[in-house]
């Protein structure tokens, strides 16, 4: 009896120690995985951040120091009496705050508008049947394939006809109405929503708009947030259109303002980099703000 009990205790002990060993091995393995994951993350991070650092440091250099050999990352302006000279010059001499405000207005309006028009169209393309659907969708994708360089002059002549020169209309309206990219994105995204959700809502008597508004839009929060970020950035960076359409100094957008730092014979690189640093800050903010909607959209756990 006693032996049996002892054996049983032994077996129990063996099981426990084996389990502990497995746990230890598992912990070790997860440590190795973690190191590998963090290692690769850090390597990627270094490579991705390098040009940004280069830009940041160049914006704190004296003009003659940008192209020194061998190349260095010494922000030489910081050792002078006016370490922020490049930034103050860009901000005040070139009226950058106003340009930034203008860009903010244009990019926000266009991106917000795209959320509405693209999601409406995307919903129809993904969930409805109608004549010419594939033709229209094809045409939409097709517009993405034509380089802007060959359509911009005809577009300019159209805007002249419409009397839209020197307004924000040419920068906002076309982008807001036809987001081919956004429509395509949301169409694909909406297609992944199980049909059962839609059917259930229809049985409950919901209107098409209500289904779009209350079922599909919330589900698409991650895609909508991504689209907003991308549309914002695209519109924020747009250069060719402002060059052609905007004359009035007070209406200039940031990229248009930045061009004034480039010259025929020479460019002011230190100012240009200071201006670039300023001009990407709003994009970073928008991205950070959108991130929490992109990751785990709050309703996405609802899909079953």
């Amino acid at each position, binding site marked *: 009896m006693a032996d049996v009990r002892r054996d049983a205790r032994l077996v129990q002990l063996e099981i426990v120690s084996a389990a502990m060993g497995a746990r230890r091995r598992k912990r070790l393995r997860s440590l190795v995985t973690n190191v590998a994951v963090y290692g690769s993350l850090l390597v990627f991070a270094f490579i991705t951040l390098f040009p940004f650092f280069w830009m940041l440091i160049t914006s704190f250099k004296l003009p003659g120091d940008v*192209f020194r*050999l061998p190349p260095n990352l010494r922000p030489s302006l910081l050792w002078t009496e006016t370490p922020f000279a490049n930034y103050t010059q860009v901000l005040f001499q070139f009226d950058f705050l106003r340009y930034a405000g203008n860009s903010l207005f244009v990019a926000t309006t266009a991106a917000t508008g795209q959320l509405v028009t693209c999601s409406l169209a995307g919903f129809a393309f993904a969930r409805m049947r109608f004549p010419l659907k594939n033709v229209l969708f094809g045409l939409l994708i097709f517009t993405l394939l034509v380089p802007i360089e060959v359509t911009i002059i005809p577009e300019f002549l159209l805007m002249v006809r419409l009397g839209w020169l020197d307004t924000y209309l040419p920068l906002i309206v076309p982008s807001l109405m036809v987001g081919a990219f956004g429509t395509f994105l949301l169409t694909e995204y909406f297609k992944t929503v199980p049909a059962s959700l839609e059917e259930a809502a229809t049985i409950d008597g919901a209107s098409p708009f209500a289904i779009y508004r209350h079922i599909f839009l919330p589900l698409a929060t991650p895609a909508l947030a991504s689209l907003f970020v991308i549309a914002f950035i695209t519109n924020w960076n747009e250069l*060719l259109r402002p*060059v052609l359409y905007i004359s009035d100094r007070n209406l200039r957008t940031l990229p248009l303002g930045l061009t004034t730092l*480039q*010259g*025929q*014979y020479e460019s*002011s690189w230190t100012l240009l980099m200071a201006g670039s640093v300023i001009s990407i800050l709003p994009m970073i903010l928008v991205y950070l703000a959108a991130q929490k909607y992109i990751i785990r959209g709050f309703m996405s756990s609802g899909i079953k």
Partner: protein
Amino acid sequence: MKRRPFIAMLVLVAMVLGLASAQTLRYFSWETNIPEETAALIAEFEAMHPGVSIDFEALPPDQYWPRMSAMAAANNLPDVFYMSSGFIFEWQANGLLANLQSYVDGIDLADYFSGVLATTRFPSPETGDVHAVPINWVGPVLYYNQDAFDEAGLAYPNDDWTWDDFLAAATALTVDKTGNGRIDQWGYWVYGRYAQVEPWIYQNGGRILNEARTRLEVDDAARETLQFLSDLVNVHEVAPRPQEMEGIRQQDVFPLGLAAMWVDGSWNISNNRSIIGDQFTWNIAMIPSGPSSETRIGYTWPDMLAIASGSEHEEIAWKFVEFMTGPGRPAETFLGGTVPFYRPTAESEAWLEPGLQPADKGVVLQLGGLPTRTSFTPNWSEWRGYGAAEGGGMNGELDLVFNGRKALDQAIETFVEYGNQVLSRSYPEP
């Protein structure tokens, strides 16, 4: 009651007069780097001409030309705008520029570098009517690192330098300072760029265009020059292959001390100053004449102001052009090394800047007195390979030669054939 119509009439007359004298000129330039100076000049002009106001806008060349072309297409050109030597021919040929000959007849050209007017005449550079007025002109010179010459115990370049003198100096200046088997300072730096190649050709009496400038035709003197330049890189190895300098801006090779001599446009004085600072002493000289040269040629070309044909304000636009290109514009508004069209400004101390480098800045002015030769034609950027298309055309072919990837004769054959295809669009076979 009776006086009312009278008052109304008065108001109307005043308004008409007001309208007549209140004129708004639209003015476009690519000089983005002197906003305050330009604003001051405009304010001065507006003060001299009450009732005239000027709407000014500036974009750098990459954006300036698409914008101007779009405005021309919409028939909405500004009254006064900048014009470049590379594009003026096509703009003249398309009737977009007002004929300014009668106005120019009214000014005393003795006060100006009138030689550069050739570019503005149409249809013939010699006898045609002037269609734009130069603001400034530029031309290539020989830059040299004075400290490097001193170190090598060499005499500085002078007007009598021959190609042999140049080669001897370049050889002595090519040194491996650290002794690691790699050259740290080359004697010279050249790639296929127009401002680095054509001046040598012209100083050897050569031509790359036929007399009528309708076809590419590389004559013997030009071939001889291209061979000389190619040999500097591939045979004598006193200049680096262009691909060796890839990643460094071409205009920085000399100021960074990687090459002790360099030929390029006079506007580089400004970049040299900002990069070299007081790290070494440098200067400029005339480009050496080749063995086939008979007379010195000045390879110079202007940046210009033009008036749109059909401008409603042509009279006042001319007054503005005259003001901006004449004595009214101070030397400080000309970026280092671009020469004011108005001679007294160019010859003033304010422009010559004694005490600043290069000590012999006046050498640039000598170019203005010489007979000129250029390679500008319709679609010049395309066959020459310029700006965003620098990799192509004649520039690209010559780089293949300098990189040791193609024989010179073959490269010449290729760029001549390509160039003549381009030119035949403007000048079809008779």
